[in-house]
């Protein structure tokens, strides 16, 4: 493999890791606050559809982005209503959201565009263009560093940079601010937050609102950045891989970045090479696709340190003495 190919694979890794990273950080906010969110997949899917649909209709990707975020927020709201307000089972609510999104996106797409459950291909202002960073062209000729900067770092859409900047931002919010302290506390010991006079419900809704915002970005990126338009089930399990990455990352922002890059790399390799030939022994592409989940099971089995989830995760908060 030469340098150019390596850069291409890594470039593709960054693109593929972006929706995972956004969804993973979304899940991180939610689960750190004690709300297990298996509905990341559904929220991303809804956001992907509405961003593509609105972008197609208006011709503005920014309006599309807003629509995508709004759709994910509505989904988050449903999850919050079911699992926080009415103290329902968070897993069931999440699964319901996945089914809802899966059905409703195709249904509306068919009703609006009559193209077999997809949106028209987005063109021009309907997509996020790649941004060329300053000096990228000028430095292109410099050996090693030039192509690295030009290929890998420059030339992504704005949402990619947002996603990567979200990592330090998330870390800072969680560990340096009052909101972060309370958010982590409510996922560990909601009774401590409640007796300290802070609203458990308020904090948890704030957390899932952030989760909605980030899954909205993730979905919009899928349909308007990574690809040009919505097709049915286009999230293709990314929400679950993001959950796996979250466990892999032990619910920490920086680890989430590394986990998503690793899973993104696996996807990039699978995409580029299909079946990998290792000296006569062929690794089928399905193995690469399954690897994130296998790695997660290995982690959960406790082979690579212990992954301890937030203690109050999955439990609706009921006051008691």
């Amino acid at each position, binding site marked *: 493999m030469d340098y150019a190919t390596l850069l291409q694979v890594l470039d593709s890794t960054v693109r593929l890791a972006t929706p995972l990273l956004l969804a993973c950080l979304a899940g991180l906010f939610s689960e750190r606050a004690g709300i297990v969110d298996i509905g990341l997949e559904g929220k991303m899917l809804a956001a992907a559809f509405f961003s593509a649909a609105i972008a197609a209709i208006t011709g503005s990707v920014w309006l599309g982005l807003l629509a995508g975020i709004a759709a994910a927020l509505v989904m988050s709201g449903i999850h919050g209503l079911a699992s926080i307000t009415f103290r329902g089972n968070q897993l069931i609510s999440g699964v319901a959201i996945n089914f809802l999104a899966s059905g409703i996106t195709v249904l509306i797409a068919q009703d609006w565009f009559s193209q077999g459950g997809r949106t028209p291909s987005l063109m021009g202002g309907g997509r996020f263009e790649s941004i060329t960073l300053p000096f990228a062209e000028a430095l292109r000729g410099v050996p090693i560093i030039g192509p690295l900067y030009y290929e890998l770092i420059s030339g992504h859409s704005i949402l990619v940079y947002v996603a990567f900047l979200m990592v330090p931002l998330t870390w800072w919010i969680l560990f340096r601010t*009052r909101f972060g*302290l*309370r958010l982590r506390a409510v996922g560990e*010991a909601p009774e*401590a*937050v409640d*007796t300290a006079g802070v609203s458990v419900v308020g904090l948890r809704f704030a957390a899932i609102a952030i989760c909605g915002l980030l899954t909205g970005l993730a979905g919009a990126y899928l349909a308007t950045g990574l690809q040009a338009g919505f097709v049915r089930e286009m999230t293709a399990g990314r929400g679950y891989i993001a959950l796996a990455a979250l466990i892999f990352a032990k619910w920490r922002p920086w680890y989430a970045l590394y986990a998503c890059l690793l899973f993104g790399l696996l996807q990039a390799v699978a995409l580029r090479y299909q079946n990998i030939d290792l000296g006569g022994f062929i690794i089928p592409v399905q193995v690469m696709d399954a690897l994130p989940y296998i790695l997660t099971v290995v982690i959960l089995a406790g082979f690579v340190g212990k992954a301890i989830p937030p203690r109050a995760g999955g439990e609706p908060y009921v*006051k008691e003495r």
Partner: protein
Amino acid sequence: MNDTPAIELKGISKAFGPVQANKDISIRVMPGTIHGIIGENGAGKSTLMSILYGFYKADAGEIWVNGSHKDITDSQAAISAGIGMVFQHFKLVQNFTVLENIILGAEDGPMLRPSLARARGVLKQLAEEYELSVDPDELVENLSVGHQQRVEILKALYRQADILILDEPTGVLTPAEADHLFRILDHLRAEGKTVILITHKLREIMEITDTVSVMRRGEMTATVKTAETSPEQLAELMVGRKVLLRVDKTPAQPGEVLLDVQNLRHVDDAGVERLKGVSLQLRAGEVLGIAGVAGNGQSELLEVLGGYADASGAVTMKGVSLPLSGAGADGSARRKAGIGHVPEDRQEEGLIMPYTAWENTVFGYHRDPHYQSGMLMNNARIKEEAQDKMTRYDVRPPNPNLAARNFSGGNQQKIVLAREIERDPDVLLIGQPTRGVDIGAIEFIHQEIIRLRDKGKAILLVSVELDEIFSLSDRIAVMFDGQIMGERMPGETDQTELGLLMAGVTERPEGKLIDAVDASLKEKEAREARQHD
């Protein structure tokens, strides 16, 4: 002296469904005093205090704080009225540092750094003022229970509470830690703070409070000056009739060794060794009391002997070796071998709560041919016998068709006791026989235990209540960190000596008791942390 009460409750009522937890309660707590609230389990003490702290909303009544009417709708309102509460089950975030727990909800601004810095200063000051020292940067999960409680008190003081409510604060402490807590409360009183102490232990009330209010079945039955009352009078006010606080018993006549336990070791699911070589002998006709603070291996000892936890070592019953793992190591085999078991947690292990009382009276013995009729259960016989047992053990109401969960704690315990004792076991294992049981029932249960002993049975009693250990045991073994620290005869020891053993201190230290206890408990935490990694 200031005549305005720090707290005045007027006509507080609160019902949970059909249960009237608080009925028209009025109480005045004077500033700068320690006010005890005593009552049996379920008398409504905790409910009342939860209303005062804004955790529940009262159906009727008013709360006055320092002479002004306050509407306390949530904990925030209580905190701003200067009320702090230390709950029985601590409300701490286990994987936060002490400092983070202190500032949670009381931060100075949106950024953490300045809040943490200020809290560090305040904490140092409070630690010196009230003997409340804890390491501010330690994670709460690495602290001993006593230190976690200090964090809770510090939390309240950091929020500038003038009125501190403590709900059953000594239940999880070693006696030396409890003494230290009372010294802290003394300091608080001297500084003009008001303390409300909720407890069911008469000794604590007599030791530290200025005034005491007694609750019974949701009502406030009396408020008296502590100096002008006696434990007997308080017990009578709590129960509504005269009670015997001392157990009448003759000296034991120990016979042959029935149960011989050698070098018992048990490792729990998390990989922590909970029993580290326990050896003991139990003789016919004696009560062996196992004293210790909860979580030092007593529960595991009962589980292993009762047959539902694996262990290594050797246990013989009347000279016959019992299997400690695999086939034959289960509750039913143990019962066949003549070992009855009244588990520590009757609601989880002793009873099946949604099942009826009569069904619960045969669990563990239901395969006995006596209760079979062909291939089916002989329900008619079981019911008939259940009715008889319930009458003789004074279970109220004596209705075998009621579900177990509909009985009070004391009556549930009587059902379990009836089941185990009526099978006439040679050895009876009893864990926490009177936890959550009202005084009236305690008297009965204690008498039953002694009666069984006098019939020549051997009884292994595990209890965290030192008073109970003293009044029932013929011999006392103290457990700490999975080991027996020593055996004493009740007549030849005292609370202080046992208290030190319960904290793993085997020799009376030269300096302050609490320092030796703290050091020993800290070592134990460190040992456990190492095993976890």
